């Protein structure tokens, strides 16, 4: 959310920052006059602007969440239907020590994948934003291109690449880099690789958005004031692109924690993530009540984690 709100708001501020102070008051005056004129119709305008989204969220987010909440307090009927009730048994089960390793593993995999996408996405976004020139759009399209293919098919391709007799092992063994085919598939390695691959654009795009509107004169100023490249990167560029970093990490981390397709396809017997647990409650075990409680618990854990993350890293200007 910070990423989408920021470009429009700060873009204007960024460009006016370089302009001499004289026109600024006029701009403010114009703004306040427009605002004043709008104020009369503000209630109508506001409801017109926000209305459709609110209705959408109400129907397809709040309402289903309420249903899940109600379900989570029920129990499984004999044939896998939901018997409504009011009991916290499912939550007690959800927080049983049984799942601690699975939850820990999910967070660890997602954290490593987030770090890797950041390490790869940052230079990429930096390159496109600052050196992309007129090819910027082409690079962005190239970045998005894999999205035109189903995620399932892209993940299946990794199976073909990684398996014992797969593309990678065939190349490595025929070049005598390794004597025996490596065991790459169905390991934590392949799951983290799949997550990193799948979520890279979610990291790169917000980073690009925040680096793109970064005021280049500030970087020049940093050089002029004697900072070297590394110091400029650490003290100027990265702090200024922090909103993008926070947005990117959230956009990658949150879906990665709950992912079930990647560990399902690329994982082994011991790479189960919490998403798999929830999925199998809904489908194989057909215990929607327990599945709902697990979903809600995961949501609660994530909310707490995000709260502390944003409080620690985030600042007011993120919003």
């Amino acid at each position, binding site marked *: 959310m910070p990423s989408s709100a920021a470009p429009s708001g700060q873009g204007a501020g960024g460009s006016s920052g370089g302009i001499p102070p004289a026109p600024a008051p006029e701009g403010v005056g114009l703004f306040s006059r427009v605002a004043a004129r709008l104020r009369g119709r503000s209630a109508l305008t506001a409801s017109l602007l926000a209305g459709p989204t609110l209705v959408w969220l109400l129907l*397809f*987010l709040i309402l289903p969440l309420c249903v899940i909440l109600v379900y989570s307090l029920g129990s499984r009927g004999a044939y896998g239907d939901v018997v409504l009730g009011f009991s916290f048994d499912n939550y007690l089960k959800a927080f049983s020590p049984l799942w601690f390793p699975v939850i820990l593993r999910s967070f660890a995999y997602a954290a490593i994948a987030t770090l890797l996408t950041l390490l790869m996405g940052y230079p990429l976004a930096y390159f496109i934003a600052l050196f992309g020139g007129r090819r910027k759009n082409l690079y962005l399209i190239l970045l998005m291109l894999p999205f035109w293919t189903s995620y*399932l098919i892209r993940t299946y391709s990794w199976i073909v690449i990684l398996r014992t007799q797969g593309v990678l092992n065939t190349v490595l063994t025929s070049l005598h880099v390794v004597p025996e085919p490596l065991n790459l598939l169905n390991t934590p390695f392949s799951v983290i690789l799949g997550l990193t691959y799948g979520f890279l654009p979610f990291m790169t795009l917000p980073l690009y958005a925040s680096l793109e509107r970064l005021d280049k004169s500030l970087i020049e100023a940093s050089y002029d004031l004697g900072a070297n490249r590394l110091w400029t990167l650490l003290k100027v560029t990265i702090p200024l692109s922090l909103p993008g970093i926070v947005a990117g990490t959230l956009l990658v981390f949150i879906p990665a924690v709950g992912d079930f397709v990647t560990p399902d*396809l690329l994982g*082994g017997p011991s790479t*189960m993530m919490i998403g*798999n*647990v929830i999925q199998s409650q809904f*489908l*194989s075990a057909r215990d929607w009540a327990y599945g709902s409680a697990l979903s809600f618990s995961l949501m609660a854990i994530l909310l707490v984690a995000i709260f502390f993350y944003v409080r620690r890293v985030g600042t007011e200007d993120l919003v």
Partner: protein
Amino acid sequence: MKKLDRELRVLSVDCLNAPVSRRGFFKRAGAAGLLLGVPGLLAACGGGSSTTTSGASGTPTTQKLADTLNFYNWSDYIAEDTIPNFEKEYGVKVVYDNYSSNDALLAKLQSGATGYDIIVPTDYMVTTMLGLNLLQEIDLANVPNIVNLYARFREEPFDPGNKYSVPWQWGTTGIGYNSEKVTGFQPSWDMLWDAQYKGKITMLTEIRDIFAVALFKLGYDANTTDPAQIDEATQLLIEQKPLLKHYTSDTYIDELASNDTWLAHGYSGDVFQAQAENDVVQYSIPSEGAIIWVDSMCIPTDAPHKYTAEVFMNYILEPEVSAAISNFVVYASPNEKAEEFLDPTILEDPSVYPPQEVQDKLTFMKELGADTELYNTAYEKVKAA
């Protein structure tokens, strides 16, 4: 680089032919859709019950063929001419639609999907659907060919007398293995615990299927509700975990074909698909016993064209029609009269039509109702281990 070439070919097979798997690939797509679509699904849940009543009022017993028949079946589970011949003979247009897992079928019906006249759930799912009031009784007077079935399929434990279900095809759940890599293969579930094949073994993902293997190995009933026996099975499955490559209900077909998996717990027809690609792949029904399953045609409660559905069922039970389906999909037919029209290689194949002493050890999986919880809880221990 010839290998690379093969990889690319296999990739295209993965992507394009995946739905060929009767119980495969799109299950996951379905699951993703289901989870993402939960809001719509839940919204639709409310509508489910009301449509039931409207459907019932719309089926007066006018014994007249409808113009269309809506048939919802497993993907690639029919002969090419089955439907065209019916359309020609009866002048009914068949709208054919596919799914690839019982879970997906159930989710669709529960979410209020209406309008299907015939669905083809697996045995235990028939019980589940009956428990949820999703099926209606079949008027067997309109299905005289029902007498063509083997006695076993007239008296199935989940639906004695075929009141709600007419069998379509049946098969078994056994072991698919690579006869070149696994040299001393014995028809026993012990093979899936053999440490020398560590990392080359796969198990299915369905909870009851997995437990059935451990229970057979222990010599217990696959439908047991004795917590002590289930506990023992749980321990056995936890012991097995380090030996496994992964749990999979679909990718093992391709892995068997590409020699990546050497021993796979799998469905007979799926293994035959792998065999078609790689002839060292063999299918075996372990001697301790195995699960037999049968997919059956059923009529949903709100089916708009009940009579036409019954006429279609009767048509399917014509010996030639049944045989043509089996000849095409290589699953066994429940139709005894179909034998004379069957491809002899299929009829004589012990892995499709097991000999009597093996058949005697085959067990149907029963829907256990509330006791399913025992297995769900036990499976959590296996998963978390």
